[in-house]
């Protein structure tokens, strides 16, 4: 191998290792959630990929909605592929720019795997190539809006290609060219991010102030994963409606199904939030130590923040499923209680990054979601209050006596 190839391989290996690890961490909950949704839609209800593509071709509303949902879901993955600060030093090396951009762009493109599979199975190779490139371009533009005319043209051309009912060779080629342009735009924009924010006065109670700090972190830096979780929640409510309608369920059984699905999506959303917050917790450990903050305060604040995330997602699910299925007030409240409880449990179950094998957190959170859903199957709506009590107990009753790292 010549020197240039060796250099390119070394750069790609570093990018794949660092950015790929972060991308895998963010992608795991998305892929697990999509797998479950796909199992319900394509398994239980006999739908096929070409049916979904057919619906997208036939209705501009469905096409726009599904593209919007996917780009929102894929945006954090694309962001992870490009933005690790640890990789900025590579830019100072005497390496061709294309050598630096290519592995980032390849990772961002590969992150669209479920979208690629859907289009490949539903509409063929050309559509898969076009749709995956277009999704990567739009997600990149959502992360780093284009600042040069060429980038703007690429984004607009992609939007035009996406708005067409099906993928022709010209549209697919346009999408591929556009993603190359947008990759270069994003690569240049990544280190220049700056944000101005509104200030939120914090209360004087240590636990409340810390919990609100966590919520601020989620609102400012974890917004899109939360939006993605909301989209899942919407899909789960749709699945509850389909399941109840296709199987002619009684109101009680429909309530149990809705409680189980609410607990499941709350576990995934709150679990993702917990992993993010534990990272924040770990990086700022010196602040907690030097201010004499107790372990109890930290555990309570983390649990309160993740419980609120779980409760909010479950409330959204309860509103949608309650309306679609005509559920009772108790069945709606049970979903919210289940969401809060599972959220608090997710906050206690998550472990700081580096403490566990990669992927084990996703498995643990998925197991919590599945276990909660099964509990709802066994106990019906009463699983809601039970899960809430379990979450409360885990947060208030399992505080370490010493002052170790939270959840270690």
């Amino acid at each position: 191998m010549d020197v240039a190839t060796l250099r390119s391989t070394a750069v790609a290996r570093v990018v794949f290792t660092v950015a790929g690890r972060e991308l895998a961490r963010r992608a795991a909950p998305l892929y697990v959630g999509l797998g479950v949704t796909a199992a319900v839609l394509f398994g239980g209800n006999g739908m096929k990929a070409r049916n979904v593509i057919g619906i997208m071709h036939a209705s501009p509303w469905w096409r726009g909605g599904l593209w919007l949902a996917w780009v929102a879901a894929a945006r954090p993955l694309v962001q992870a592929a490009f933005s690790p600060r640890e990789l900025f030093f590579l830019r100072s090396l005497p390496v061709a720019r294309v050598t630096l951009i290519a592995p980032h762009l390849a990772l961002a493109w590969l992150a669209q795997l479920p979208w690629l599979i859907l289009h490949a199975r539903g509409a063929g190779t050309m559509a898969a190539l076009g749709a995956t490139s277009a999704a990567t371009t739009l997600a990149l533009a959502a992360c780093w809006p284009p600042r040069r005319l060429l980038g703007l043209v690429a984004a607009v051309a992609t939007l035009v290609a996406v708005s067409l009912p099906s993928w022709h060779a010209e549209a697919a080629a346009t999408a591929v060219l556009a993603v190359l342009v947008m990759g270069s735009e994003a690569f240049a924009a990544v280190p220049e991010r700056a944000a101005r924010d509104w200030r939120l006065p914090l209360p004087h109670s240590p636990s409340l102030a810390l919990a609100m700090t966590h919520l601020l972190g989620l609102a400012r830096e974890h917004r899109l994963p939360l939006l993605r979780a909301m989209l899942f929640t919407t899909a789960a409510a749709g699945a509850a409606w389909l399941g109840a309608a296709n199987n002619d369920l009684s109101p009680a059984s429909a309530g149990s199904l809705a409680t189980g699905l609410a607990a499941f999506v709350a576990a995934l959303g709150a679990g993702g939030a917990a992993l993010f917050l534990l990272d924040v917790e770990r990086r700022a450990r010196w602040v907690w130590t030097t201010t004499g903050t107790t372990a109890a305060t930290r555990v309570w604040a983390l649990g309160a923040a993740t419980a609120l995330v779980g409760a909010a997602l479950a409330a959204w699910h309860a509103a949608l499923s309650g309306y679609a299925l005509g559920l009772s007030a108790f069945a709606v409240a049970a979903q919210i209680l289940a969401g809060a409880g599972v959220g608090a449990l997710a906050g206690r179950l998550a472990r700081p990054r580096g403490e566990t094998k990669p992927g084990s957190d996703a498995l643990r959170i998925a197991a919590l979601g599945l276990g909660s859903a099964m509990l709802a199957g066994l106990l019906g709506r009463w699983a809601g209050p039970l899960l809430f009590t379990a979450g409360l107990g885990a947060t208030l009753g399992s505080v370490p006596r010493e002052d170790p790292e939270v959840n270690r």
Partner: protein
Amino acid sequence: MNLHLEHLDKQLGGRPILCDLSLTVDEPGAVAVFGDNGAGKSTLLSVLAGVLRADGGRATLDGASLFEPATRRQIGYVPEAADPPGHLLPDEYLDLVAALKRAARPPAQILDMLDWPSLSGRRVAALSLGQRRRTCLAAALIGSPKLLLLDEPTNGLDATAMAALAGLVTEHTRGGGLSLIATHDEVFAERIAARRLRLVAGRLFP
């Protein structure tokens, strides 16, 4: 004011960093700790701040163990990296530290010295090293701590900020406080009239 360190030991990765280190400071003032790179200055401050746990020995401030969480509220610490949670605004960070220490925010006079308005509106992660250090310094002064632990405090500061830092350390000393400063900056140490110590082979020497 009495800071008493007795037979402190700390190893990192099997390598001894602090070895039987002892120090007594009986009166308010600034103490500058010099030493080569890797001598253990940051480790010493991290141990006193409670970020690292000492392998052995005692550290007391006015008779109370520095390793107790309650005593840590008497400490203000600015680490070398100066990296508070990046998603917060400097003002929110002050609110958080004030809540955690159960104390009031620093008075406007101190914030003015640190040119606080220039920091507002931007997240900590978007600030320069010098701006983050000013943020950490303001937070370290919350609760009028008896002991200030400053790790390379002049790194990244411009001339105005350095003058403000010197003024704040001097004010802290006048108020009866003690500052322990790990630094390479001889001029700064001269400016704040610090007692000088050198950390060599894990021990402090005059």
